[in-house]
Each structure stands twice: as C-alpha cells, then as structure tokens.
C-alpha cells in the first residue's frame, strides 16, 4: 500500500514538474507583451543598430550613438555594434550600410592601448 502511494506521489510530482517546465519554457515567453529592446530578434536588433549608424553618420555624435546602443542591454555598446556588423554581413546588407556600421564600430570602440603582437611566425 505504501509503495503504491509513493509511486503515485512520484508520478504526480513528475507531472507537476513537466507542467512547471512547460510554463517556464513555452507559456511564459509567449505571455511577454512587455519585451524591451534587449529582447529584439537579431534581425530587428541589427536594423536598430543600423539606424543608430545612419544617425551617427550624419551627426557624428559618439556619445549619443553609445547611449542608443546601450539601450539594447547591459553589454558594452561596441559589442552590439560588432554583432550587428557581423549579422548585417551575413544578411546581405548593402556595402553602404556595412560601411555605416563599420564606422559606428570604429567610433564606439573603447580606446585601449593594446600592442598588436602577430602570432608566431616561425615554428
């Protein structure tokens, strides 16, 4: 009798866990109507960065560009710009757009004095 009850207890726990996981992985994300810019799909995020690059191209305001990129999340702005440049290349953006993005990457990159050391040239 006890074994039987324990078996059904475990079964109920497993069913409960599956329902909980289903909620967390499937239902909860669909319930998001409160998505922020950080939740944008990669193509929309890339387009957002492109808009930032278009504005930067005309206004040349690095601080504004950084602030706009920072709205995408907690990473450093240059990371968003680099990711967008990579995605834009894969998605076949025009050379002009790629150039805008590249200019933005260059502008928002943190100025760090790093000495370039090419890899080992001889074995």
């Amino acid at each position: 009798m006890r074994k039987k009850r324990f078996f059904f207890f475990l079964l109920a726990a497993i069913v409960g866990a599956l329902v909980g996981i289903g909620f967390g992985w499937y239902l909860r994300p669909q319930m998001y109507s409160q998505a922020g810019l950080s939740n944008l799909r990669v193509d929309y995020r890339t387009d957002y960065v492109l808009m930032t690059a278009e504005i930067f191209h005309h206004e040349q305001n690095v601080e504004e560009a950084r602030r706009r990129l920072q709205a995408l999340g907690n990473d450093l702005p240059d990371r968003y710009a680099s990711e967008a440049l990579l995605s834009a290349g894969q998605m076949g953006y025009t050379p002009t757009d790629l150039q805008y993005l590249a200019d933005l990457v260059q502008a928002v990159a943190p100025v760090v004095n790093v000495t370039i050391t090419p890899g080992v040239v001889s074995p």
Partner: protein
Amino acid sequence: MRERRLRRERASRAPWYLLTGFLLGLAAGIVFSVWFWPVPYDFARPSDLNEEARDNYRMIVARAYFASGDSGRAYPRLDLLNDEQPESILAAHAQRVLAAGDEKGSNALALLAAGLDTDNQIEPTPGGADSGTVWPTLVPEMTNTPSGILSELPTLEATDEMEQDGTPIPTIEPLNIPSADIPRATPTMFPTLSAPYILKEKAVDCGRNPRPGLLQIWVESASGVAMPGVRIQINWKDGEETFFTGLKPEQNNGYADFEMTPGFMYSLRVGENGETISGLSAADCATEGYPERVGGMVLRFTER
C-alpha cells in the same frame, strides 16, 4: 466492525499526497525553467515591445529619417510597431518629447508624422523657401530595406498624393507641432576617405596553424591602438570579398583573417585608400624545412 470503520475512514480520506506531489513538482519545474535554465527571450518583434521601448524605437526611426531623409525605410520600419493610429501616436509622442525639452527629437517625430497624413497635405514649397522648412526627398538609391526583415515589411505604395518625382507631401496642419528645420538629405553614397593604412610588416607563417593558408591581418592606428571596423577588400582572379577588422575580438580588436586557397594569387587593400598589397598567396613552407605544411601570411598595417 473496527475494520469496516477503518476502511470507511480510508475511503473518505482525500488523496492529498497526490496533490502534494503535484505541487512540489510544479514548484520545482517552475524554479528550474524560470531561474535555473530559462529559455532566452530574444525573438521579440518591434510590435511586442513595451511602451517605453516602443517610444525608443519610434524615436530612433524618426531620427534616422530626420538624418537620412529616406522615407522608403522609415515608414516600413514604423509599420513594424503595428500602431493603430500611427500619426496621432507620433504627434502625441512629439508633444511629450518637446515638453521634455528635446526639440530635435520632436521635430523628427513631427516630420515622420507629417509624411503619414495623406488627407490634409500641404504641398511644400520647392526648397522650402516660404516656410523655411526644407523637406527631404525620396532618394531611390537609398531605399534599400535591410534584407533580414524584408519579408515582414509592407511595401510603401505610391499614392495620388505623392508627386510625380516621388516626393512625399507631408502635412502638418492637424498636428500642433513646431515646424521642423529639416536639412535636405544629402546621401553620401561613397564612404569618406579614412586615413590610409600602410604595410608595416609582412611575414610567412609556417607554424602549426590549424587553418592552412590563413592570411592574418592586424591593423593599428599610428599610436599603436588596435583598429576595429576597418574595411579590408581582397581580390583574386575570380572574385573578391570584403570584411572588417574587429569581428574576432577574442583575438584582437584590430584583427581579421581570410583563408587563402593554395595556388591562387590575392591582392588586398586595407581601408578606403590604403596601399594595395599584391602577390599574396598561401606560403610554400618547403624552404622553411616543412614541405608538408601549407603556410599562411601575417600582415601588419599601421596608419600612415
């Protein structure tokens, strides 16, 4: 008698253990799927955004339009928000932004709203001589919608209200917004010339590189700072490719690489007007004592 009573008690007892088990499992499942292993939520469309993010998105669309004058991009981008009455939302947003002291943002939103109102349009004076407002014109070359979202963008159909030359006729009458001092869009189709990069070091790499024929490019500024986002164009007999430094930040911000095919000759240029380096090919390591290896090259560029 006693046994019967016990049996009756047991039967009347609800199976609480089942409910307990279910609730424990449910709690564990929720904790696991929400905190320990949450599904990354990075597939939102602009229409899924919350109000604050929608405002940010709308503003950046307007500012990009304000800067580039490219309505062929701005309106499809705005449509992605699925606003029911975009013109009134834009107008209200422009008012809020103006009240917050951002005149430029307000002007940008006003301009975007003006282009949407097709009922009460005021035809702008050519060149904006009378009103002091210079309206941007459609520039067909600039209306390249990024292909990544092409499938979801509605097309902007030409209407009777649009002039023959494709200039949108904005209306500002129903909107209580300030007149915008919009500069005429002057798209730069060719990137401005950046500082030229010159070859500082060229070496053959016959090391044990897992990628044979790898061309490693390192670009730095005159002061020795690694330069990300520098365009590199490489050409060979049957093709060409363009890529940028900084796409492998784990290596270096000024690093880029390209896999050369043995037997092909390549020429390469770093930046817009940098020196063209010709005669690049996968290195023959036989002279280095490693005939079995296909060597690469290391090029180091610096700003002139």
